[in-house]
């Protein structure tokens, strides 16, 4: 009997620690900001949804599966919005969503980095996004910034007034 006690305790501790490492599922709270900017164009996407599971202690257990409604683009100018949604750019009618699905997470010196598939305009590219997570009383705030080349996603024509490198800044408050 005594022989069984220690393995049983060890198993219990192991199971307990596994529960302690279960990543937290967060809800996206209001006040998020998905902003893009280039040399001649800039704007925000107003609608952002998805699943965010994140564990600071064990980033490998985390999971991001988020999407942006392309039609929610707002550049601050009605004509530009229409142009951005047209088939020359995002083609919102054919590709209504921008999607990001995480594949792996790593801890970095200043925060974390998620690597995953970014799908824009029907083109999927592996994309790494460095980000930070700041805990708050009710959840936390994810902040990240990265750059994509619009030509990789066949957005617009190469060259032209709009810069090819598009900087994307993300700030997403979340609640538990």
């Amino acid at each position: 009997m005594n022989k069984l006690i220690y393995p049983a305790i060890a198993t219990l501790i192991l199971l307990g620690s596994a529960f302690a490492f279960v990543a937290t599922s967060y809800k996206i709270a209001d006040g998020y900001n998905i902003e893009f900017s280039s040399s001649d164009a800039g704007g925000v996407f107003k609608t952002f949804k998805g699943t965010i599971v994140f564990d600071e202690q064990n980033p490998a257990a985390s999971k991001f599966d988020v999407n942006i409604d392309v039609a929610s683009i707002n550049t601050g100018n009605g004509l530009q919005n229409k142009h951005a949604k047209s088939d020359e750019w995002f083609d919102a009618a054919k590709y209504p969503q921008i999607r990001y699905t995480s594949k792996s997470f790593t801890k970095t010196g200043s925060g974390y980095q998620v690597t995953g598939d970014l799908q824009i305009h029907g083109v999927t590219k592996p994309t790494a996004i460095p980000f930070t997570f700041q805990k708050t009383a009710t959840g936390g705030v994810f902040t990240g910034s990265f750059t994509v080349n619009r030509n990789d996603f066949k957005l617009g024509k190469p060259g032209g007034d709009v810069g090819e490198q598009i900087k994307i800044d993300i700030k997403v408050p979340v609640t538990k």
Partner: protein
Amino acid sequence: MFKKALILGIVSGLLAGVAGLIYAHLYYSINEADFGKVASSIRIVAGSVAGGILAAIGFWALNKWLKNNGEIVFNLLFSILSFASLLTPIAYRLPRELETPELFPGMVIPMHFFPALAWFTLKPLFFRQKTI
């Protein structure tokens, strides 16, 4: 001449401002698009009065310079410039928190014609037409 033109410019600017405020109110009640942050009541009236004063200066200068043809050139210029000024609201970039920027030109474009309309409406009261 300049005094009369200036009074006409100010009065027609004020009239255009009042018309702009009424139109903005109507536009908001129809479309529920509130652009008060960028086109506030003060800005609408101030912009209209500024338009009227600029028109007065232009009217006085052209009449002085071109004598009999001054008014013809002024009327043409005032209409052309009012029309050309439409590019400003079309190209204007609103703060991104405003939801429907596509409705903004519809509100502001008519207002760009109000100073000219008010000027042409009130001018006969200030400058009596000579009988032929």
